[in-house]
C-alpha cells in the first residue's frame, strides 16, 4: 500500500490534475468522433490511442523537468531548428510542390514542427535575459529571432505553419510588453502591405483567399472543402444527426474528415449542443492555462506559458474558423481531437511545460 502510494506520488507529483482531466476529456471526445469519422475503423482509432499515449508520456517527462533545465535547452533547440530549416531550403524533399521535409538518413522530419516550440522558448529566453532593461531594440532583436525562421517556412511554402508560428512569437512580444503604439502601428502597416504580400503569394494561396470570399466560385475545386463542411455543420442543427449518422460524413462528402475537418463531423453529429459543450471543454483547459500563466513566477515562465496558452487557442480558433467557413483553409489540425501523432506530441509537449511551471517550486533557494 505504501509502495503504491509512493508510485502514485512520483507519478503525479508534477502533473496538474485539473489540466490533465481537461486534456483527457478532449482526447476521449476525439476518439469517439474519430471512430465515426473513420467509418468505424478500429485500427485507426487504436493507432490514435497509441499517438495519445506516446504524447502523454512525453508530456509527463517534460512536466518532470524543472524549468531551469528547459530554459537551458532554448538556445540549442532554436539553433538546431534553424539549421534544419536552412537544410530544408537547400536539400528538402519536394512533395506536392512544397519543400517541407528533410531526410536525415534515419527518417524524414519536418523542422517547422520543432520550431513551433523552439521559437517561443527562444524568445522567452531572450526577453528573460534582457529583463532589466527592456528597450525597443530588445523587441527588435526578438522580432528578428522570429522573422528569419518564419520567412524560411513561408518560402517552403507553408503559409499555415508560418502564420501560426508568427502568431506564437507575436504573443511573446505582446506579453513581454510591446508598446501598444507599435502594435497599432504594425497592424496598420500590415493592412497596408497586403497588396505587396498578395503579389508575393503562390497561386494556390491566392486561390484559397479568393475561395474563402466566395466558395461557390469553385465548388468542385478549392471551394469544395468549405462548402461540404458548411453543409455538414449547418445540417447538424441543434441536436445533431446522432453519432455515426451524419450523412455528409458517412457518405464521404466531407473531405479530410479524420484530420483537419474532424470538427465538421463532430458538429454534424452532435449539433449546436455538442459544439457548446466542446467549446466549454476547450474553455476550461484554456482557463486553467491562463491561471498557470498568471501564477508563473519568472519572466521566462510567464512568457512561455502565455505563448503556449494563446497558441493552443489559436489552433482551435483557426481550425474551427476554417471548417465553419470564416477563415481560409490552411491545414491546421484541431488540437487534441484531429487524427495524427505529430501535432498531438507538439501540443502535449506544450502542456508538459505548463505543468512543469505550475508544479515545480516557484522560488528556488539553494
Amino acid at each position, binding site marked *: 500500500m505504501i509502495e503504491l502510494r509512493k508510485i502514485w506520488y512520483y507519478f503525479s507529483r508534477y502533473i496538474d490534475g485539473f489540466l490533465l482531466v481537461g486534456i483527457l476529456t478532449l482526447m476521449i471526445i476525439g476518439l469517439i468522433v474519430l471512430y465515426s469519422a473513420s467509418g468505424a475503423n478500429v485500427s485507426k482509432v487504436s493507432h490514435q490511442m497509441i499517438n495519445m499515449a506516446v504524447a502523454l508520456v512525453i508530456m509527463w517527462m517534460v512536466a518532470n523537468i524543472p524549468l*531551469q533545465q528547459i530554459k537551458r535547452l532554448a538556445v540549442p533547440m532554436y539553433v538546431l531548428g534553424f539549421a534544419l530549416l536552412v537544410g530544408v531550403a537547400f536539400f528538402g524533399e519536394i*512533395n*506536392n510542390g512544397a519543400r517541407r521535409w528533410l531526410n536525415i538518413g534515419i527518417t524524414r522530419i519536418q523542422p517547422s514542427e520543432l520550431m513551433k516550440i523552439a521559437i517561443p522558448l527562444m524568445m522567452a529566453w531572450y526577453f*528573460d535575459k534582457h*529583463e532589466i532593461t527592456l528597450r525597443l531594440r530588445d523587441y527588435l532583436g526578438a522580432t528578428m529571432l522570429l522573422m528569419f525562421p518564419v520567412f524560411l517556412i513561408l518560402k517552403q511554402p507553408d503559409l499555415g505553419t508560418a502564420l501560426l508560428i508568427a502568431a506564437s512569437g507575436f*504573443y511573446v512580444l*505582446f*506579453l513581454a*510588453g510591446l508598446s501598444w503604439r507599435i502594435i497599432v502601428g504594425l497592424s496598420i502597416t500590415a493592412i497596408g502591405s497586403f497588396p505587396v504580400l498578395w503579389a508575393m503569394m503562390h497561386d494556390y494561396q491566392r486561390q484559397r483567399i479568393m475561395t474563402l470570399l466566395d466558395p461557390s466560385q469553385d465548388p*468542385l*475545386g478549392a471551394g*469544395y472543402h468549405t462548402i*461540404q463542411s*458548411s*453543409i*455538414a*455543420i*449547418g*445540417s*447538424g*442543427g*441543434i441536436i445533431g444527426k446522432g453519432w455515426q449518422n451524419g*450523412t*455528409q460524413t458517412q*457518405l*464521404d*462528402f*466531407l*473531405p479530410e474528415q479524420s484530420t483537419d475537418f474532424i470538427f465538421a463531423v463532430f*458538429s454534424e453529429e452532435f*449539433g*449546436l449542443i455538442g*459544439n*457548446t459543450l466542446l*467549446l466549454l471543454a476547450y*474553455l476550461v483547459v*484554456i482557463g486553467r492555462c*491562463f491561471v498557470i*500563466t*498568471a501564477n508563473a*513566477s*519568472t*519572466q521566462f515562465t*510567464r512568457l512561455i506559458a*502565455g505563448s503556449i*496558452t*494563446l497558441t493552443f*487557442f489559436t489552433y482551435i*480558433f483557426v481550425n*474551427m*474558423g476554417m471548417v*465553419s*467557413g*470564416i477563415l481560409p483553409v490552411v491545414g491546421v489540425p484541431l488540437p487534441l481531437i484531429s487524427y495524427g501523432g505529430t501535432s498531438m506530441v507538439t501540443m502535449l509537449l506544450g502542456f508538459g511545460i505548463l505543468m512543469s511551471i505550475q508544479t515545480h517550486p516557484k*522560488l*528556488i*533557494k*539553494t
Partner: protein
Amino acid sequence: MKHRVELRNHPIELHKFRIRLAVSAAFVVVLLAILYVRFYYLQITREEHYHTLAEANRISILPLVPNRGLIYDRNGRVLAQNYSAYALEIVPSKVADIEDTLDELATIIEITAVDRQRFRKLMKESKRFKSLPIRNRLTDVEIASFAANRYRFPGVEIKARVFRQYPEKEIISHVVGYISRINDRDLEQLELNGDLTNYRGSHHIGKIGIEQSYERELHGITGFEEVETDAAGRSIRVLSRTRPTSGNNLILSLDLGLQEAAEKAFGERRGALVALNPNNGEVLAFLSKPGYDNNLFIGGIDQENWNLLNNSIDRPLNNRALRGIYPPGSTFKPFMALAALELGKRSPEYSMSDPGYFSLPGVNRRYRDWKPGGHGRVNLHKSLVVSCDTYYYSLANDLGIDNIHNFISQFGLGKRTGIDIEGEVSGLLPSASWKMKQYKQKWYAGDTISVAIGQGYNLTTPLQLAFATMMIANNGKAYLPRLVKQIQNSQTGHIEDVPAELLYTLNLKPSHLEIVKNALVDVTRPGGTAAKAGANAAYTFAGKTGTSQVIGIKQGERYNEKSINERHRDHAMFIAYAPAENPQIALAILVENTGTGGSTAAPIARQVFDYFLLGKQPESTVAQVTEVLEDHAHEHL
C-alpha cells in the same frame, strides 16, 4: 547569480503582465464568441438550407451514357464500332502524389511513357475530381493483378468503359473522322445548343468527319439513375432508373470496296479522289491520301504521334478531297467549251489555226501552248481531245472573265458543295469584282488568258471538280453530294433513307452537251490525252486530263520536270465518268507532284471504273509508275 534573477519579481512588472494577460483572455473570449455566432448562424438560422443541401448531397442523379451509333458502308461493312473493355482510371484529387502512384502502379501493370504523357495532358485539361484513364484495354491478367493490389491504391479504380474503334483506319479516316475527349470549346458549344444535359457523363464527342457532322444522330439520349452516393460517385443504392437511348446507326453511300480499289490504285502517291453517283449525288468514294490512323485520337493523342502526323511533309491530317485547293488545269476546259457553245461565242464547226502560242492584240507577250509548234487546225472537239491551250486562250479573250465566272460557277466551282461533313473550303473562281475587292486592282485581259486553262487565280477542291463532272455526266443536274445514305433507328431497327436532294437543274442545250460529251469520250480513245488509260475499256469512258501548276514558269522558260524539286512538280488531274451513255459514276482525281493527268491520274480512274462497273480488282501500280516517268517527257497536258 542565476537565483537572483529567479527571485526577481517586480510588483509593477507583474501588474503590467497581468493586464496584458487579461487583454489576451478578453481576446480569446471575443474570438470564441465569434465562432459561436457562426455556429449559431449555420446550425439555427440556416439549418433548413443546409439540411436541404445535405439531402441533395445524398441522393444524386447519375447519367447513364448511351451507346454511340455505328457507321457502315453501303454494303454493311463496319467503319466505326464499339467494344467494351476495362480501363484503369485515377481520380487525381484522391491521390496524394500522382507520380508516386504511377510508379507503384507500373510495378503491377504496364504503364508506358506515352501513357504517362497522355495522362498528364488529360490532368491539365480536367477537373481534379474527374476520373481519368491511365490505361485502356486492360488484359484479364492485368485486371486480376490490380484487383489483388487494389487496397494499395486509393483513388485508382478499374472501370468498364465502351470504346470506339475504326477498323479501316487510314483508308476511311478522312470520311469517318474521329471522336475524342470533350474539351472546353466543345462544352461551350454544347451549352450554346442547349445539349449540355444530354452530355452529362459523356466523355467523347465527334471532332471531325461523319463523327462530327452526325453527332446528333450518333450520340443518343443520356439516361439517368437516381442513386444514393458518396462524394466519389460510388453508388450505394439505386432508387430509380431511366434507360439511355442508343445513338442511331449510319449507313453511308460510300462503297468501301471501291474506296479500297481507289486506295490500291493510288499506291504510295499522295492525292485525292472523289466519286459521286451522277443520278443522286451519293458519294461512292472519298479518298484523301495519305490518311491517318483515326483510332489514335480517341483517347487523346500522345505528343509523339501528334508530332509525327502534324509535322509530316505529306500532311496526312489534311483532307485534300474536302479542303485541298488546286488550280483545275485543263479539266477546266470542258466547262469553257460548254460556255462557248451556250453563250454563242463558238460554233462546233469553227476552227482556228494553232501556231503554238497566243498573243493579245497589240501585245508582244506570248501565251504558249503545251505543245511546241501547236496542234495545227483545231475545232472545239479537237481542242478537248488534244487539250489545245491556244484555242482556249483566244476563246477566253472573246468570252471575258465575267461571262466565264457567271457561267462556270453554275457548275459549283469556287463554291462549297454543301456535302454532309464540315470544313469544306470554297476555292475560287475569279471575277473582275472579286479582284477589285481582294487586291483593289482592275481585271486585265491577260488575267483571263490563264484562267482559260484552269490556272491563274483558279482554285478548286477535288470535291468541287467531282461535283462539276457529275453535272456534265447527268446533263446539268446539281445533286447535293452526301455521304450518309440511310439512318437506322437504334430502338426500332427501322432504316430510313436520306432522300436525294436536287439543288437545281441547268438548262443546257442537249446538242451542246452532246458535242462536249463526245469529245470527252474521244479523250480516252487513240489520239486523246488519256488514250492509254482508256485502251480496251469494256465500257465507254469519258474524261479530261489536266495538270495543275505548283510553281509559275517564267516567260521564255520551259517546264523541265527532272530539274524541279519533287514537291514543286505539277499535280496530275483527271475528271471522268462512265459508262458515257448512261453514267453511273463520276469522279475527280488529283495526284500530287506526279506530272500530267493522262499518265498518272487517268489510269487510277480506269482501275476504279473497272472495279465499280466490272468488279475487277486493281493490280499493283508499281509497273505503271515506272512507265509513267518515261511518259512524262512527251505528254504534258
